[in-house]
């Protein structure tokens, strides 16, 4: 018997927002739908979002789920969480946020929260007309687990986002490895490679830390050249690896005063969450590392 929190049971026994949202033709309103999972794998979720076109706001959210207790509870939680958010805000909802909302999920059921996050992304991409494949098939879409059809990029992403350290956890989060098990060794390799990337001195932000310390000790009296060099360093060592793991990339185009101009590439260029990427992944990081007053914009 699974050990479920009261919140999980509450949303399972009495799910909120179940069902579909039909396109009514109401002016200024559109319905976005996202489907993820499969009946073969034993869980599937179809998410419907009613979006106010003008403001990009989610007016209503509903779900249809094939799956176990936690899949149903996760879907219901997700719909509660995203109502009232703009699409960009909704894109920031992570699987961890869904699990947290539920007061936690059994480790072996974390994939239910991942499914929720993915359905949300799928719905928003659909709405914005971005083929999901551009995001999903990064890293040449190398398939790691054929039993569950899971790509390397998806595994890397879940490792990074949830700080996973062993293959069993990866199985719990995305199911990869939960079938014949023949991909487990490859998953171990991916974990090791992700860890190495992030543990190597360069990527441990060692260089950036030193540079930041110098800057801070000088009360941020940076020369223009120093500033640009530091921005480049932060981008190279802290920002790009994350984006690359996600199938994208960023290039520094120019710095004009406090305006940092960048070019987003790969999946990030076409990705609907690029605004979010800019703000969270790049601007916040540069503000933290270089100067509070920096503003990042894409060119």
């Amino acid at each position, binding site marked *: *018997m699974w050990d479920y929190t009261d919140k999980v049971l509450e949303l399972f026994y009495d799910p909120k927002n179940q*069902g579909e949202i039909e396109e009514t033709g109401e002016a200024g309103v559109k319905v976005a739908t996202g489907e993820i999972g499969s009946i*073969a*794998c*034993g869980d599937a979720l179809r998410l419907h979002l009613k979006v106010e076109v003008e403001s990009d706001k989610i007016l209503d959210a509903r779900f249809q*789920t094939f799956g*176990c207790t936690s899949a*149903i509870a996760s879907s219901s939680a997700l719909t509660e969480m995203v109502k009232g958010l703009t699409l960009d805000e909704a894109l920031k909802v992570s699987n961890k946020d869904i699990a947290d909302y539920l007061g936690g999920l059994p480790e072996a059921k974390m994939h239910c929260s991942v499914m929720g996050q993915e359905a949300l992304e799928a719905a928003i991409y659909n709405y914005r007309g971005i083929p999901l494949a551009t995001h999903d098939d990064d890293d040449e879409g190398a398939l790691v687990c054929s039993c569950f059809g899971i790509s390397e990029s998806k595994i890397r992403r879940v490792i990074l986002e949830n700080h996973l350290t062993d293959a069993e956890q990866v199985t719990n989060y995305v199911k990869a490895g939960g*079938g014949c098990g023949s991909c487990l060794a490859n998953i171990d390799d991916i974990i090791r490679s992700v860890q190495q990337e992030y543990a190597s001195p360069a990527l441990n932000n060692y260089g950036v830390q030193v540079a930041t310390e110098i800057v801070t000790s000088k009360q941020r009296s940076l020369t223009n050249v120093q500033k640009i060099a530091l921005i480049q360093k932060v981008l190279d060592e802290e920002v790009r690896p994350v984006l690359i793991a996600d199938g994208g990339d960023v290039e520094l185009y120019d710095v004009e005063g406090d305006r940092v101009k960048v070019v987003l590439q790969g999946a990030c260029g076409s990705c609907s969450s690029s605004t979010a990427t800019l703000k969270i992944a790049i601007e916040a990081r540069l503000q933290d590392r270089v100067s509070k007053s920096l503003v990042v914009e894409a060119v």
Partner: protein
Amino acid sequence: MQNNCIYLDNNATTKVDPEVIEVMLPYLTDYYGNPSSMHTFGGQVGKAVRTAREQLAAILGADESEIVYTSCGTEGDNAAIRAALLAQPEKRHIVTTQVEHPAVLNVCKQLETQGYSVTYLSVNHQGQLDLDELEASLTGNTALVTIMYANNETGTIFPIEQIGLRVKEYGAIFHVDAVQAVGKIPLNMKTSTVDMLTLSGHKLHGPKGIGALYIRRGVRFRPFMIGGHQERGRRAGTENVPAIIALGKAAELELLHLEEATAKERKLRDRLEQTLLATIPDCVVNGDVTQRLPNTTNIGFKYIEGEAILLLLNKYGICASSGSACTSGSLEPSHVLRAMGLPYTTLHGSIRFSLCRYTTEAEIDRVIEVMPSIVERLRALSPFKNDDAGWLQGQEQALAHR
């Protein structure tokens, strides 16, 4: 809730018969002697162990010298397989089926890494074996054929004696995992082709932690538990006396009730099954409905998932089991249902109800009463409604190669 739950998960384990507990208790308190001891105190216990052995032999139609106590069904299966191979070191081939219990399947998989070749016989949609396929797989190199009597998930009964006749032609040892069959099917080892047979106490209203292996007299047996001379050197270790006494009594009672209990279970099971099928659309019975244990029904409720069904049943105090991946440690649905080639629409929503002689009509009525609303409720949540949803078809095809 524990005490008044409607317990329909008897293929997982059963309630210990109060009479069994009664005969067992003194061997935990007053009669604690070691049956191997020379003194009278131990001798009394030794005598009780012998009585239990006779009781157990009776349900199998075996001789008491052919019984070896084990700690559980898994030990019985492991011991039988290892013993058969040790006794014929020159033969390197094993035949089994795709739907065995992990206590057999996983041993075979391990043996494959040790140079043995294993044939895993397939089953058809009803979960039944193809005897021609069996025949074709047998060679002079076959050391062992290990096949279950009745499947724990679907209740499907294999034609053990017909299989045995073929096995004997090739001179292989025939082991049968009868953990689910003992007490539900009349057995007579005297007229049987079976060489070794495994049973487990807790499936027949005995306690957990005790089982037995029947070894036909004359079958060469090399033990894998080695130590003292207990069980005539075939299974070392001081006997689990209270459990052995209990198993003997449980076997006696099971034999006593066999006919009337199985008739009653069959009647209740059929009513449950037929009513659910009649009142709930889109559900099917999994397994061979003619060759089947009298107490088991496995029903696939399409478009919904088993764990969710179980949790709702649990709310009504009803305990059943599911072949869905979500209830097991693994993420793959039941290997038995998969081997039968069931469509995914049915596979994940399969529920096993298994009855016992304590099951009452009122309990079955209750399940019949609540089940339709449970299914309806989950189907209202499901994105799948019928088999030709485009989404669904794509998924089934994409994974058809698996």
